[in-house]
């Protein structure tokens, strides 16, 4: 959005925003994809992990801006700024924070993503950070006290853990299968090899 974003970044941000939208379309992939347990959080996790914290957050923001502008891009075909007055508003805004946290942890220290760090990122950023905004807002909107709201949001936990596992697997596989998709250089941990390796 600022002048520092080159054409490739612009395209990648748009593509990930579109990816999150597509994961909410009916008939995309079975098993997931109902409201409010939605595959879209998987898209958020992938955006943070692949694009990194800032571009990942930007792509989530773009999606939410389009939702606010009235496109029916949330699971179940919901859209309009009313979404941001509803009980799930905090979760939706939490996606932005989630993408930032995931990106920061996955790429911490400019090192190549490894399984444990990626899994940690998905739990901390993709679950805890999102709930940290989602639950208070839900409680505020529905006037159900915080504790009870937190208790009722436990229904999301099994699905979110499955999505975190899938995201971890996909991201760590991408490191092996298509490293240039990350579009960054990684520091190589072993000092005797050259300091900069892999991916462009």
């Amino acid at each position, binding site marked *: 959005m600022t002048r520092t974003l080159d054409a490739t970044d612009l395209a990648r941000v748009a593509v990930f925003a579109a990816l999150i939208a597509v994961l909410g379309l009916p008939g995309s992939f079975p098993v997931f994809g109902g409201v409010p347990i939605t595959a879209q959080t998987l898209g958020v996790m992938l955006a943070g992990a692949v694009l990194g914290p800032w571009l990942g957050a930007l792509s989530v923001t773009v999606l939410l801006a389009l939702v606010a502008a009235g496109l029916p891009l949330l699971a179940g075909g919901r859209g309009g700024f009313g979404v941001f007055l509803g009980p799930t508003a905090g979760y939706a805004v939490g996606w932005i924070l989630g993408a930032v946290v995931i990106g920061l942890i996955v790429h911490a220290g400019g090192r190549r993503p490894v399984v444990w760090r990626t899994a940690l990122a998905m739990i901390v950023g993709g679950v805890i950070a999102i709930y940290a905004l989602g639950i208070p807002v839900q409680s505020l909107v529905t006037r159900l006290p915080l504790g009870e709201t937190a208790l009722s949001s436990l229904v999301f936990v099994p699905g979110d853990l499955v999505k975190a596992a899938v995201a971890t697997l996909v991201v760590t*596989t991408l490191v*092996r*299968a*298509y490293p240039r998709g990350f579009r960054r250089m990684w520091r190589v941990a072993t000092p005797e090899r050259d300091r900069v390796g892999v991916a462009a």
Partner: protein
Amino acid sequence: MSIVRCAGLRVRLGAREVLGEVSLDLSARTIALVGDNGSGKSTLARVIAGLLRRTGGDLRVMGCDPDCDPAALRARVALVLSNPDAQIMMPTVAEDVALSLRSARLPRAERDARVDAALARFGLDGLGDRPAHDLSGGQKQLLALCGAFVRGPRLVIADEPTALLDGRNARRVADHLLADTGHALVLVTHDLALARRCESAVLMADGRVAASGASSAVVDAYESALTC
């Protein structure tokens, strides 16, 4: 035996009738599907492969009705697309081929043996442990063929499998598809020289069959229509 037989086949996608009243009885082993962009070739291929349900009419593929017995059909039919990236599901070459054998529940040793044999047949031996997305475009498409053929399909449906390949790779892929290894072939292509290598051909126009018969006659007719 008849490979594909249909009568009054209709397919509606969204608000649009994409295939209208297609009637065919194809028994040649290799069948080319040609026609302009948007004429309905891919749609027909996907209906035959059991990936899309028809809206009306009658269809038999290798003697069975895709809508009544999708599992039986899927066990016998394989599909190859032009975009290799969409067809590669696993990180390494060997894992990707093995994925096709998952539903067969073979013992591990036999599965590995079949994977190795398939890789060798398509000239990919020695690449089993390589990341699949590191392969060149031509190699990726050979890998997709490998994943399709390892299940021993009786019918292979290929939708523009050579569109993105160079002459050498295109010929290699076409040779594998056309070779008689006990399978029939339905091949969608814009490459008319390749279409001529099939025994018979179907010319699609605007969601209908415009001509069908021996490939040389059908392709000649199409080619002369193209140049005037």
